[in-house]
């Protein structure tokens, strides 16, 4: 026992630990491909025939689509022309981190913690009905009623990733609730595009 306590032995023992106990250099880093972010999102407005609270497809509907890149913005100068008095089926499609389509199904699968809000329109210009399968009320599919012409505005589509239990406090009438931030959570998508609502075919550019 006494020999163990010679300073030289102890120092050598300690240095030995220092040198060999664990690896002395870092591991080579491995690239992690972030999978949290959506790579792109597309909003598609398809004109439908709306009557008696139901939509029917048209033979040659007007279809307007806009795609947002990873900044949440469309190409520079993009704007949408929507016709007052018409109803559009509004669908959201997204691609995942690798650019694969169909990522929006994830939000439907977790419908209890996701909901989309449609913001930015002046009062009385738009109305919206969620039309997701099984009444999931997410907003991947819905009907946008363009009620009257208006000045152009920035249409803001926010897909909210809600904290657990929060969705129970949200109703379908909250589709354009400007205080959506009170529904605690974070945004999975925050898309902005300029919209012109015009009378009939009078598209102003």
């Amino acid at each position, binding site marked *: 026992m006494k020999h163990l*306590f010679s300073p030289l032995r102890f120092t050598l023992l300690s240095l030995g*630990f220092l040198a060999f106990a664990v690896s002395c250099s870092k*591991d080579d880093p491995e690239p992690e491909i*972030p*999978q*949290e972010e959506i*790579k792109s999102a597309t909003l598609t407005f398809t004109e439908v025939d709306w009557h008696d609270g139901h939509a029917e497809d048209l033979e040659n509907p007007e279809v307007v689509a806009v795609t947002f890149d990873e900044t949440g913005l469309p190409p520079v100068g993009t704007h949408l022309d929507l016709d007052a008095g018409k109803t559009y089926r509004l669908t959201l499609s997204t691609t995942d981190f690798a650019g694969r389509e169909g990522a929006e199904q994830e939000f439907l699968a977790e419908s209890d913690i996701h909901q989309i809000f449609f913001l930015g329109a002046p009062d009385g210009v738009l109305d919206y009905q969620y039309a997701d399968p099984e009444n999931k009320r997410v907003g991947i599919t819905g009907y946008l009623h363009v009620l009257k012409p208006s000045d152009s505005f920035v249409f803001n589509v926010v897909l909210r990733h809600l904290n657990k239990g929060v969705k129970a406090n949200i109703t379908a009438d909250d589709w354009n609730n400007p205080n959506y*931030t009170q529904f605690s959570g974070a945004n999975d*998508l925050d898309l902005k595009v300029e919209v012109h609502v015009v009378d009939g075919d009078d598209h102003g550019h």
Partner: protein
Amino acid sequence: MRIWTILISILVSIPGLFVETGYSQTPTCHLTIRGRVVDSDTQLPLSGVTLKINPGTQQILSDGHGYFRFVQLCSGTRYAITATSVGFDSLTTEVTLENDATFTLTLHHDHILLHDVNVVGHQQTVVTTNAVRTVSHEQAAQVQGKTLADIFSTLPGVSMLQTGTTIAKPVINGMHSNRILILNNGIRQEGQQWGSEHAPEIDPFVAKEFRLVKGAEGVRYGADAIGGVIITSPSPLPVDPHLSGELNTLYQANGRGGILSGMLQSGVSALPGLAWRVQGTAKRSGNVRTADYYLGNTGLAEYNVSAALRYSRPQSVFDAYYSRFYTSLGIFTGAHVGTTADIQARVEAGRPFETYPFTYDIDVPRQRVTHDLGKLKWHRDYSGGGSSDIQYGIQRNHRQEYDMRRADRDALPMLDMVLTTQTLDANYQTPLYDHWRTQVGTNLTLQVNNNVPGTLNTPLIPNYDSFTGGLFAIQRLIRETHEWELGIRYDFKTFDAAGFDKRQNLYGGQRDFHNVSGSFGAVWHMSAAWQLRSNLGLAWRAPSANELYSNGLHHGSALYEIGDAELGSEHGYKWVVSPSYANGALTVDLDLYAQYIQDYIYAQPSPGEFLQTIRGTFPVFRYKQTDASFFGADLALRYALSADLDYHLNASVIRARDITHDHYLPYIPSDRFDHRLRWQLPIESKLASNSYLTFAHQWVLEQRRYEPASDYAPPPPAYHLFSLYAGSQFALGNHPLEAGVSITNLFNRSYKEYMNRFRYYSHGLGREIGIRLSYSF
């Protein structure tokens, strides 16, 4: 300004008030008593023994070699020296002084409580010209079960940086994280301390001593000790071969938390000098409440174990130690935010939008941390008073942080890092020779950080390895009435990092840092009542991995932080002047400090720069360097109003600025005052002793010195908190049972603390009732 005027008035007036009562101002009072305290059984020196002299109010602790010294004593006066230490019978020796005198005080084990307490053995004490502040046993007991930061915040000058209710870091004179050093049982605590939401991984139940050095002790301890040093130490292992131990239980009503902590220890009769100890703590609590509502997901589970072995020989001691700290803690759900719009909505509401029930469940966001520490130490005393220490330490810190993720990935950590640190410290202290004593030493640190692959998320910091080597020398001159200390140190650090950013581009590289630091300090024992300490220290630190390379969204604050790989070292010059006075009923400890930090690193808002993502827009903060100044004062005052009634006041003020840009620094504690009235209850008996009742009031002022553009919300208004503490010691057979009750935030006041990063989302804790029992055998 008014605060400064008050403090300066106190400082200026104290000498004038009490100079006439300082009996030892008499010029003929210049005699000295020296001595040493030893254990009657083992003849080993005893450190940390409390020694009082009467008349006079000098009270000191024996040093690491059992030595003590009283100065400024008067000839012809009959003095009584009383030595007290836990586990020993008190000893009083009387002497009439005609000349300087030398004693050996031999303490005998307390036969009644021999196995009830820890026996104080051979232990190194902190030697410095800086004032060393200690958390008293009673103060530590009153905050038992809380975090290390809570314990140290009972000292003036220490506050907490909180991330909600479950994470707290100590802040010394406005410095925290990588600017302070935590010595856990003699080993530099190395976790991922750069993160403000990364609390020290230490079980306070392991420690019996909590000491604080506010000076820049960069020479003695190396890099990072810019703002001060926190020292936690367990009690020494026993020398007698009888099984002893203690059992602590605690119930906290807020959070319905329970703690069980136990310890067993003994010497080994078959091999005299060999002793062991095992210890463990389990802690579990659920959602805590503010004054008006529960905070969702604030539960906590913590399980810690430690084991110690010591072999003592007359002139050498060998220590082996291992501890594991494990915690799983929830982070308040309401602080999970997306964008600045989310934060602004919450700031406007001032409280969570949702209501939460009580639950013990811990959901995402959450942290899981395991910290292992191993230590081997060899200490040797040489004839004549010299000594040497060699210490090896190894730590492994595994941190996993979980967040709300998409597509069922909640169970996958967002961050998963393993930090391994090895340290080797060696120092030699010469015997005292003609008033001179020299200490030389070296510290080597090898650190490796690896991200565990598979998080499907870009790591916040890269993999890295670093080596730090330091050499230091400290020269002390020890005279009867004054001591001087001069220290110099050289450090070298090499840091090699490699990682992939979110676009899979490789980044990193090697950085080398050289630094020379120094310190100069003095202690002046002006009289039996007055003592003055002053220390000027230069300390440094290299930029941390996140300051160099972070490039990502900051958890809970909706900020995008970007590091700067070209950042240089930070240098801090801290001057602390600590006058102290102790005479009769009054004890005053004051710390005045001025600190200049060259190339101070902090994340500053980048004007006009925002990051546009598909998830929203985030303000960008970039790590930059500037020069900063810190000035402040900490006051601790105790006045015995009567034999049973004591008044205590702790006060701290601090002023900090970015002097390059002439604006305020963020997250500087506001001025605060704590005072308390302690009543020693007159119910002494064989069954109950040391019963007390303490009424405390804390007044925290509003922080008015901040930059509006750098924060989402102005600092919260001032608040007052009242607390009540009571305790007593009962005899349970031959063993003591200590019981205590604490009620903090007595009136269940709703308040917010500026230093809580979650103050945007919620209030501080409501009323907390704690009941504790501590049984020693």
